[in-house]
């Protein structure tokens, strides 16, 4: 699913200030029926994350936290079963899971002797049963299961998707008889930067030499692609030469501009792979 920049921007335009709920996703799918759902979800998630990054700071001032906490307390006193925390998050345009974390931290500060450690908070978010307050536990749980962009469940889904595509890619490589070293093998050898796969014998795709392949189970938008270029793709080039990135959920066409330089983008496993002929070599 390769989109032009214009197509992408049309989608992104529809995502401004949309809460990350399953209802929003449903509407998005109706609006763009021709796009794959996974692509839409990936774009939605990325756009929302950009939005949160921009507004993150304003929710973390002590005044804001205090006011949210008071509103939460007032809300649950009135009705503990109502989705107080979720409504609050949607109202102030903040991710429910992050709001849950904020309130949980604030709550623990008030009720515990020492400030809660990050790992304790994470553990409680993963398993709200550990939260000492039953009402808060339910509120937090509700936020987490209703958030489709943040939270431990979403993180796990993303991780799983990434892993699944790596496995998929590995299978495809095996099927094509291309021998490779995977990340774990590379790490064991002490490589400092490790793409998903390094081909032991390079191949050519559409006339470009490929030494390594990186699988990205997301949509390649400008922001993420530039970050990846800087943190990963160029680093791979710096060590292993030119390579291939597969954005399984598509990418913005205009970003595929470094082919000559040694970074090729594809939205699927390439079909025409040219391998080194042993009779020539």
């Amino acid at each position, binding site marked *: 699913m390769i989109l032009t920049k214009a197509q992408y921007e049309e989608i992104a335009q529809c995502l401004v200030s949309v809460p990350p709920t399953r209802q929003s996703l449903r509407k998005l799918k109706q609006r763009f029926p021709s796009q794959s759902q996974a692509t839409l979800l990936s774009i939605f998630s990325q756009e929302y994350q950009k939005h949160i990054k921009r507004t993150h700071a304003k929710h973390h001032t002590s005044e804001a936290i205090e006011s949210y906490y008071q509103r939460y307390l007032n809300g649950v006193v009135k009705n503990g079963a109502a989705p107080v925390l979720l409504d609050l998050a949607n109202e102030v345009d903040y991710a429910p899971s992050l709001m849950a974390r904020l309130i949980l931290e604030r709550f623990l500060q008030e009720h515990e002797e020492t400030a809660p450690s990050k790992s304790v908070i994470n553990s409680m978010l993963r398993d709200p049963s550990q939260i000492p307050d039953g009402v808060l536990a339910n509120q937090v749980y*509700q936020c987490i299961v209703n958030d489709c962009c943040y939270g431990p469940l979403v993180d796990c889904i993303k991780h799983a998707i990434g892993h699944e595509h790596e496995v998929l890619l590995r299978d495809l490589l095996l099927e094509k008889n291309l021998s490779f070293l995977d990340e774990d093998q590379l790490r064991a*050898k002490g490589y*400092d*930067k490790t793409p998903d796969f390094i081909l032991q014998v*390079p191949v*050519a795709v559409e006339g470009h030499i490929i030494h390594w392949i990186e699988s990205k189970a997301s949509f390649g938008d400008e922001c993420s692609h530039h970050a990846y270029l800087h943190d990963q793709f160029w680093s791979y080039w710096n060590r292993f030469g030119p390579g291939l990135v597969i954005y399984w959920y598509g990418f913005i066409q205009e970003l595929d501009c470094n082919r000559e330089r040694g970074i090729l983008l594809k939205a699927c496993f390439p079909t025409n792979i040219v391998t080194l002929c042993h009779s020539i070599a």
Partner: protein
Amino acid sequence: MAAVLESLLREEVSVAAVVRWIARSTRGSEDNPGEAAALSSLRPLRKEFVPFLLNFLREQSSRVLPQGPPTPAKAPGASAALPGRPGGPSRGSRGARSQLFPPTEAPSTAAEAPLARRGGRRRGPGPARERGGRGLEEGVSGENLPGAGGRRLRGSGSPSRPSLTLSDPPNLSNLEEFPPVGSVPPGPAGTKPSRRINPTPVSEERSLSKPKTCFTSPPISCVPSSQPSALDTSPWGLGLPPGCRSLQEEREMLRKERSKQPQQSPTPTCPTPELGSPLPSRAGSLTDEPADPARVSSRQRLELVALVYSSCIAENLVPNLFLELFFVFQLLTARRMVTAKDSDPELSPGVLDSLESPLFQSIHDCVFFAVQVLECHFQVLSNLDKGTLKLLAENERLLCFSPALQGRLRAAYEGSVAKVSLAMPPSAQAVSFQPETDNRANFSSDRAFHTFKKQRDVFYEVLREWEDHHEEPGWDFEKGLGSRIRAMMGQLSAACSHSHFVRLFQKQLLQMCQSPGGAGGTVLGEAPDVLSMLGADKLGRLWRLQERLMAPQSSGGPCPPPTFPGCQGFFRDFILSASSFQFNQHLMDSLSLKIRELNGLALPQHEPNDEDGESDVDWQGERRQFAVVLLSLRLLAKFLGFVAFLPYRGPEPPPTGELQDSILALRSQVPPVLDVRTLLQRGLQARRAVLTVPWLVEFLSFADHVVPLLDYYRDIFILLLRLHRSLVLSQESEGKMCFLNKLLLLAVLGWLFQIPTVPEDLFFLEEGPSDAFEVDTVAPEHGLDAAPVVDQQLLYTCCPYIGELRKLLALWVSGSSGRSGGFMRKITPTTTTGLGAQPSRTSQGLQARLAHAFFHNQPPSLRRTVEFVAERIGSNCVKHIKATLVADLVRQAESLLQEQLVTQGEEGGDPAQLLEILCSQLCPHGAQALALGREFCHRKSPGAVRALLPEETPAAVLSSAENIAVGLATEKACAWLSANITALIRREVKAAVSRTLRAQGPEPAARGERRGCSRACEHHAPLPSHLISEIKDVLSLAVGPRDPDEGVSPEHLEQLLGQLGQTLRCRQFLCPPAEQHLAKCSVDLASLLVADQIPILGPPAQYRLERGQARRLLHMLLSLWKEDFQGPVPLQLLLSPRNVGLLADTRPREWDLLLFLLRELVEKGLMGRMEIEACLGSLHQAQWPGDFAEELATLSNLFLAEPHLPEPQLRACELVQPNRGTVLAQS
């Protein structure tokens, strides 16, 4: 000096005698007494002769080549002191580095005046940049250049030289009137050392008695006064005469400009507009004067001078062979004689034999002279590249003046295979990551490792940016990248990081700039990178990329200053911008090491006795290998010179006087960065000058002005001078240096002698090198020098300025409108080969001597093959031991560690202690490595040797070769293994221990026993991510908020659980975290089912899930937990207050599902009774509504009241019985 020339012209002495007289300080026995007498009276002037001759010729040609291509020459005054002479006033000459020929104190003689004009003429082409610019700015009006024109006028006004006055060149600054003739492209001229500008103020008081070597101008604050004494050591000690001030200022400015040049832009500057503009007008207005042999005036005189001149060239008495050839080519291709303002005087025979009349009176004279000289140097010409030969052979003037020479040249052209193409450096390819040198084990700390990781990336980021922008106008390296580079260098705190970075830098440098056509990205001395080999095939693409990267090749005239063309500019600018002394120091260390290593490389020596075709094939390889080594050395040495002398180079004028003395005293204390003197001496002794000298020249070309004054370096220069003199091209004999080898050395040395920082007087030393330049050669008879390692390709690659000859000829053909780079430069891809490292040369005994003797009579390829095989097998052996023996030991270590952990409990004790225990147990096994290694080498080497040697190799030779290979490989492998095996095992075990201990940590459950799905599985199960997502949706629907129309159907739930089962059974895509979350979600789902909280779609009546459906779903879940989950399922969460609390919200409360679930859990052995009891117990402690607490207590009692069942493991057999739990639950 003129006296010598005159006596020659009068045939009082023979040419041979003159040359002998110049070349040798002692009188040759073959001289006849008359000649000897004539010459001996002139002995004090002997060493002034050559500079005089060169200046004389240049001067004489000034009317023909008023503004032609530069023919710089450098010939100092005769008495100029050796630069290093302490306290010598010759230091004064440092200030006059721009001079061609420093003035001497020699009193003016009769012949002096003709040369006086040189000041004007000399400024012709060489300094075209300054000149051109100035000419346009100031010269449009026809006014004189400051200093030049004025002086010329003064000079021409000298009453003593009427004839010269007549031929005085007109105002050269007027480009309209005197368009440059056959000039080289103006652009590159800008980078020529501006020493060629030598405005010479002319002294009014010259006497006619003696010529002044005034091809040069006095240095700042000195004057070419009439101070007589020829031996005066302070020739320029006097102040400037009035009127010289502006000259001094001008020179000062020029010198500043000049000293800036080497540090300026990475590539030779492009033609500047003001230089380019006069070109069109020049082309149009010019008509070539035809040359006619019949119209040559005073043939005899020309022949004589040509002969003397040729002899000087042949004897290497001139500093730069190719410069003289260039000059001669200029004469050959001169277009037009500038007519003298006044009519030529009558040329009487009496005048002809003296110097009173101009030597070149017409184009005919020039061409005649040129052809005469060229005839004497046919051998050199015939060794030029094919393109030049073709142009020469096709030159109509040459044909006209000497059909014989033309014929020989044509024959030489037809026989020549010396096609030269100046390939561009390969494109940027990153240095590949090599775990052996780059992994964590090579760093002192994690931090250093990660810092270097980042630095590598920043380095390439900067490199990419440079590639993109450096050719854009207005882009500035320092502005664009400087701060980023310094920030990066700032992070290199640990010394070890510096060395890592330097290694990367140096490898990248070699990779990008090293070789012509070295596109394979193979770094010298390293095993070829398999990954990059396919890349090498894609040459077309690579070349295109290169073209982008490369600045257009521009010539810098016959004597360009040292530059950093193309990619080299990046590295130069990087060093400058980084301005880090740590980096520079590490870089120098590393460059020195690599230079030593490559310089000492045992390059195969030519065996003169195998001349068959087979060895020819081998010889191609040898040559290529030599070329790769030589070019790498030159590159490294250039950068070493650049960095080493960087602190001493600056725009300020070289110091003089006392300041210079103190600097000298200081600098002489500083040890050289690399002991180049010793390397040179050894190189000469071992007859490896052809390898050592070219890189040494590169190194020295970056020396600052003080360097040649230091004793240490002066020794080097003297050695080089002696070598230069000894390289007489016509002397060829067995075992001596090959012709092209000599030519290469002459070219690079000649170039070095023209570098502005090298004192011009250095060349014409009093203690002129005798022809008895003999070094004690300790080397075998046939050193590298005697091997034909240099070909034209290498010659032209090392000395691209030789190509200027071809340009000159081509411009003649194409007319003067030729533009820069009129030739299509073809690119010839060549491949580089990695060099096998030298086998270790330890333990040389009789066997070794025998082996050595064995190779002596075999073709060199045999030896290389054996050495190569030994090197590779030895290296493979070590790798094999690592992969087998060491890996086994590591596995043992892991299992031992597991035992330890089991016996010592979770903690397992101190990791360091554990490691010690393990190592003490395992390291002794390392002793096996040697035996295994020996066995490996025995097994592998013979086959490899057999495969690589020709089939026809005699059996005895083959078996000897095999045995030697086995021995060498074993020696190499065992040497390494015995030294390193213990440390290696230790390191690997340590890594394994920390790995195991880490894995022991947070997620022991993640390492399940049963991994992978059944063989028949086709992996069509739904993806875990999809399932988590689906279950999450159900959960979110259940906990709300939800729209009234939202819900799930029971079928959907069932289907979901069915899919979950499939996914759990096909483990292809499942990762531990996903399984954990699926487990957790399934428990949540169960709790919601128990509490009847799942909104069901359908008619309102069915809003709640039927009991039976709920049970069925719970059954499915129980089965999944029991059978399919491999990781732990947090079942205790079913009884967490939060999940049980869900029941509190339902009215009426239904407890039966919970009871059912609990019983089933016990039944299936998923939870123990005790565990459940404990959970139920803790539930009571929570705060509940009164009635709920009561009901909970009832449930508890009900569950507890049931009879104790046997322990789970015992009940495994009972599970096959009818579902007892269900019965119970329904009871």
